[in-house]
């Protein structure tokens, strides 16, 4: 019987959900979920077992089941040509002395690894140089009071048919053991505020949200996240905007220039850069479900993904960004890296195991520490974590001024892309025409469509740091079995030339 190495990942999450819907404070809901994933690594096979029972007996039983799966994997798995024990040694080699203690100390803030390492990226994005200061959240009753104030402001008119103010707060603790040694302990608090308002007038229904219907404004931290989110005072603004939208004409159809705000850019980055660069998709793991990728392993290092203005990084160290961490779920130390530099594709979002599989196929790729799982009950797969488009030089006004005829779109409302992550169509909540370099008429139901492989080459203006927003979503779905995970996306406003846009049906 071959020897086995064992890793255990213990995860505890405590979430509290506060909602005021249509003026009624909903009952407080919470979740307290905890358990462990035992992974047994044979030299050429790996097996998993998730158990809520973390006493010696429970872990021993789970180890037995995981070992049985590992033996099945060794007999007919994908790892016949990979020395998994050597891979674990490599991962262990990436750990720094005192990692576990350091992570506990970095609780609730951004990760430390790689901070200040001199990546020539992330201009305009604040990086944590140490533990991030986090202000305490007020008591629950005060938070509900705050939501109630904004809920009241959302209901600004009798045509407002739905109005919701919500706040999710999650505390997470994760520990990782390699062969009985604690190598990582990481804690974080995630804050997800949102406002949503729907108005109906003469048969036209429109919705505005604070950060999209997928909680686009979400970060790690405390009360300062809430303050930065725009929730406070946001009710009146969104109510005003939704009442403008129900009176607005449909966005015109045609090929025109397009200016995207960060809260649409984040979805554009997510769907047409993030997913296609996930190495497990490129290796075919997701072809049965989430899909493959138009990117092939031979393209790294030479493929022009976009115009020279396109710079994209994987960065787990941006202050407060949602998916920051110091070590991924397979134990690889994380640090920021450039994925696309001046438009050229450099590396995939590929974890250590995926990179080892690519090597077997003849591709020696540098990757990222991005083996992640949604919780204790799922095995890690390649995920995008924090994926950011770096700011350029143009002010927002300059971006607008550079458009003779175009549309400015804000806040994602609809998203769809093919299984190779190429042909996409997105819709936004808010549109505004740009005429002769000026923002003019508000339009409703703005949408646009394109093809990833050519869309990014039409990027011809990137906003400066003043236009950047650090956003994300807790709802990125992928994997078999399914996993819905947190990802962060920071982006400036961006301008594209010659895009097919469209509006509402008649």
């Amino acid at each position, binding site marked *: 019987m071959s020897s086995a190495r064992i890793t255990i990942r213990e995860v505890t999450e405590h979430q509290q959900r506060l909602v005021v819907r*249509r003026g009624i404070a909903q009952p407080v809901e919470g979740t307290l979920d905890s358990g462990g994933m035992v992974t047994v690594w044979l030299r050429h096979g790996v097996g998993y077992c*998730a158990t*809520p029972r973390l006493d010696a007996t429970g872990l021993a039983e789970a180890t037995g089941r995981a070992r049985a799966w590992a033996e099945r994997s060794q007999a007919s798995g994908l790892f016949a040509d990979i020395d998994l024990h050597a891979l674990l040694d490599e991962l262990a080699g990436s750990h720094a002395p005192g990692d576990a203690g350091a992570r506990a100390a970095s609780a609730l803030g951004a990760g430390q690894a790689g901070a200040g390492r001199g990546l020539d990226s992330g201009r305009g994005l604040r990086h944590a140089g140490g533990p991030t200061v986090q202000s305490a959240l007020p008591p629950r009753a005060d938070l509900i009071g705050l939501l109630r104030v904004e809920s009241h402001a959302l209901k600004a008119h009798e045509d407002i048919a739905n109005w919701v103010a919500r706040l999710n707060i999650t505390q997470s603790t994760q520990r990782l053991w390699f062969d009985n040694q604690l190598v990582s302990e990481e804690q974080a608090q995630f804050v997800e505020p949102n406002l949503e308002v*729907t108005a109906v007038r003469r048969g036209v229904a429109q919705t505005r949200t604070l950060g999209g219907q997928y909680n686009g404004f979400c970060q790690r931290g405390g009360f300062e996240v809430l303050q930065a989110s725009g929730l406070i005072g946001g009710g009146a603004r969104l109510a005003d905007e939704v009442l403008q939208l129900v009176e607005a004409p449909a966005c015109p159809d045609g090929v025109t220039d397009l200016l995207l705000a960060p809260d649409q850019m984040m979805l554009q980055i997510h769907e047409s850069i993030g997913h296609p660069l996930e190495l497990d998709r490129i290796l075919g793991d997701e072809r049965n479900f989430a899909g493959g990728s138009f990117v092939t392993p031979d393209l790294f290092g030479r493929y022009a993904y976009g115009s020279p203005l396109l710079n994209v990084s994987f960065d787990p160290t941006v202050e407060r960004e949602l998916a920051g961490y110091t070590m991924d779920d397979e134990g690889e130390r994380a640090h920021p890296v450039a994925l696309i530099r001046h438009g050229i594709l450099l590396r995939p979002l590929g974890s250590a195991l995926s990179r080892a599989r690519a090597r077997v196929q003849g591709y020696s790729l540098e990757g990222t520490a991005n083996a992640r799982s949604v919780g204790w009950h799922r095995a890690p797969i390649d995920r995008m974590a924090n994926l950011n488009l770096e700011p350029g030089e143009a002010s927002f006004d300059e971006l607008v001024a550079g458009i003779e005829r175009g549309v400015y779109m804000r806040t994602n409302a609809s998203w*769809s892309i093919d299984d190779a992550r190429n042909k996409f169509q997105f819709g936004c909540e808010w549109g505004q025409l740009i005429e002769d370099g000026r923002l003019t008429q508000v339009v409703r139901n703005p949408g646009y469509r394109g093809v990833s492989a050519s869309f990014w080459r039409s990027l011809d203006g990137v906003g400066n740091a003043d236009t950047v927003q650090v956003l994300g979503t807790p709802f990125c779905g992928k994997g078999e079995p399914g996993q819905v995970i947190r990802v962060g996306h920071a982006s400036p406003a961006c301008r594209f030339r010659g895009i097919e846009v469209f509006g*509402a049906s008649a």
Partner: protein
Amino acid sequence: MSQSQPDPRLNERRDAQAKARADDHVQAASRERAEVPSALRRTFADLGQALQASHRPDEFLCAWVQAEASDYVRLNQGRLRQAGSVHRQQATLRLIQGARQSSLTITLSDDPGRSMAEQIRPALESLRAVLIDSEDDPLLDVCRDAVVSEDVGPGLSSSGRASGSVAAVLAQDAGVSAQVGLDPLIDVLSVRDAQGDLVAFIAAGRLGRGFCSSSGASQWFERHSIAVDGSIHLPVDPLTGDRRAVKFGWSGETADPDALSEAVARARLEAGLLQRPAKRLSPGDYRVLLRPRALADLLGMLDWGGYSARAHLSGQSPLARLRAGQQTFSPLLHLAEDLSAGLAPAFQTDGYARPPRTELIREGRFADWMVSPATAREFGIAGNSAPPSEVPESVVVGCGRLSDDDALARLGTGVLLSNLWYLNFSDREACRVTGMTRFACLWVEHGEPVAPIEAMRFDDSLYRVLGESGLEALGDRAHRMPNLDTWEGRATGGILAPSALVRALRFAL
């Protein structure tokens, strides 16, 4: 009578079959119960007793349980990629005191060293602390009756035979025998050849749903199932980069490697056609034949608030114009939630019994909506014990008269759509939906499939596609498609749907 109006005799027959099946379930379950209830069931029973023992005189306690003991196996290139087991039981504990309520979902452990009362005590203390500064909930409505029901499905052995021994059942509880039981299925899928590689996912084991309360309610739903969802992928075309694949699937209550082999063989046969040069379609309207999966994908968009009373009354329903009578679907279209198929529990999270059948669309018109107890209170309307999501779990689409044998001939020249992908609303008010074609979608000429098509984006209103001038015919046979979602555990529910012949679907890109 319109072409696809449900034949009441067929309904009666189906109801009788469902009842017989349900009776079988109960009898089989009784036999199982007489021997060894599953670990999931035992934990649920412990929880019910703990609730009764833990509540204070002025408190009402209830819990919704979502449990699974699952084996998950994914394969790529005909080899194991990830395989593992998950044992997870979550209870949403709800504490009610007067008109105030709060809930906390916790993970239950089957650690014999920790009693259930001990496990839930910290959660109850936490909930009591929350209630101190909570307000009355004007929408509170929960069933306080001591309703007792049990619906335990057959197939509790993964060996393909009835559960033989206590040891076998216990071993299966632990997930161990399930691994052994899945071996023949994994063997079928562990194939590598030049005809295209195989990617697949197996989800197997028990799942349970339950509602229990401090007043003695105990409603339990349990199934053992195995589902294989796979696809065969041809080599990527080196010139065009085009990717072609065909889907296959099999599900059952016990492992059946022969049936799975047949499904894979059928897919391989179909994959042969995909080797022809692909046809690139220009944007525009095309006559299409939607296979049942593709029709189910389209109709699945109506779950996004289409039937929800709350969505309708808060301006968010894509079927607002249908309900208002401003739009209609074809009179051929009938759609209902029907729980008699046994795919989903007949009770909801507030403990109320679900109606066996709710007509949602009748002859293309809005028939009824789904109203949860809270929505009924909020808007002052009659409820129908819908779940809080107000989404149908077990959908039945009425059949028509189009036989599978005639379908391609009736299509003539057009597109055969097997699967759709990543659907979303591009204009919710207009019920306008966008999405992609995926897997084996074929160009058909004069009733003969001649070539695969390159993936196309469609963007069209369902009022047009499935409207009176759009929907030409529905298939005469409904296909059962269980819900294979595994986001927070294996899902219950599914859809029974036929194929659909549509005069025009608009491709946009």
